[in-house]
């Protein structure tokens, strides 16, 4: 599928596209551009050396693979389409819900203080549940166990808004998970990442490791990091979760996808968090 001849043809087309777009001068057409991500004055790290043992050499944020127009949407909190949902979630934070009559604010006080750095450390091993938790799992654990409220659906606007609000408090901070505690989960995730699935018989690595920087149809393949989720995707014309993206990729290769919130997707999330450590959290980001 990614043979030499096809590579050359798409290179010519992409070169023309990038010349018009005004992307990196001098660098190979396939590489991510050299633009700098500054959001309302705050500098965000989008390029960092990978740790030893990482299949990637240099980590590049997905932002570096997007067109300047898409990049611009993320650089301005007014233009960023997710911020409307983040504003709504701020209200929800302070509203009591469930049988215990508690709001998030009752225990966690000011979200802009208590949630600093939280998203950067996810996924996390949850001792009580004996499994790895994504942020969504933790939100629902608080809701069902402490608030006596109903769990939110993984992809609901409530959940997306709340995880975007919490994630925003880690924006600019490096992704930094507990490698040791999560070791078996990361190993499981790495296994899945390198397994070929579906009718097209592709693994995550085939695209995001072997071919990042290459054009797949009209899409500039990134390294597939999770540092910006939940993200607004132009394709979705809406904001979505990392597990939704995983499902989309599996649908694309005509495989039977795992479920959002499943052990498999959580393991995958843990592996790509491990693989992306050092890059800044960009939640809520804007992608294609």
């Amino acid at each position, binding site marked *: 599928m990614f043979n030499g001849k096809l590579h050359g043809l798409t290179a010519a087309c992409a070169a023309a596209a990038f010349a018009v777009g005004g992307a990196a001068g001098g660098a190979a057409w396939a590489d991510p551009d050299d633009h700098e991500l500054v959001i309302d004055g705050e500098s965000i790290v989008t390029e960092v050396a990978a740790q030893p043992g990482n299949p990637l050499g240099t980590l590049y944020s997905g932002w570096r693979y997007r067109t300047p127009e898409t990049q611009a949407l993320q650089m301005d909190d007014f233009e960023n389409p997710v911020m*409307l949902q983040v504003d*709504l979630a701020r209200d*929800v934070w302070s509203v009591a819900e469930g049988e215990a009559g508690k709001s998030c604010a009752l225990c966690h006080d000011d979200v802009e203080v208590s949630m600093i750095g939280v998203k950067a450390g996810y996924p996390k091993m949850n001792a009580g549940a004996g499994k790895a938790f994504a942020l969504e799992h933790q939100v629902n654990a608080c809701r069902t166990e402490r608030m006596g409220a109903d769990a939110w659906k993984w992809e609901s606007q409530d959940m997306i808004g709340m995880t975007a609000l919490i994630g925003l408090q880690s924006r600019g901070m490096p992704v930094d998970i507990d490698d040791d505690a999560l070791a078996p989960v990361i190993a499981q995730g790495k296994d899945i990442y390198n397994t070929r699935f579906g009718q097209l018989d592709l693994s995550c690595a085939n695209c995001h490791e072997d071919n990042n920087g290459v054009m797949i149809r009209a899409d500039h393949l990134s390294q597939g990091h999770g540092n910006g989720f939940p993200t607004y995707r132009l394709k979705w014309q809406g904001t979505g979760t990392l597990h939704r993206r995983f499902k989309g990729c599996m649908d694309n290769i005509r495989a039977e996808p795992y479920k959002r919130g499943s052990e498999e997707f959580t393991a995958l999330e843990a592996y790509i968090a491990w693989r992306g450590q050092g890059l800044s959290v960009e939640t809520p980001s804007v992608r294609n």
Partner: protein
Amino acid sequence: MAAPKPRVKVPNSAKVGEVIEVKTLISHPMESGQRKDKSGAIIPRKIINKFVATYGGEEVFSVDVGPAVSANPYIQFSMKVPAAGDLHFAWTDDDGSVYEMTKSIAIA
């Protein structure tokens, strides 16, 4: 549903006579009144029907908004800054609610 929330982008300061760009957004479902629910009944119209911006008490920009405008209406306009003052925005809902926001502009 959740209460509509306005957002605006206005420069903090400008020179006298400078033309500035003002961007506004309000989260609102803008139910057009054309949609039907599962049982086939019309979902009643509920939209922002008017937007007014005033500067130093004087109206500088207004929009009569119709049901064709979709959710979370984005309204952008330019204006000349005569002097320092307060830019006041008001969005009126069909149900009579008025959502407001004010931003001050200093002279650079």
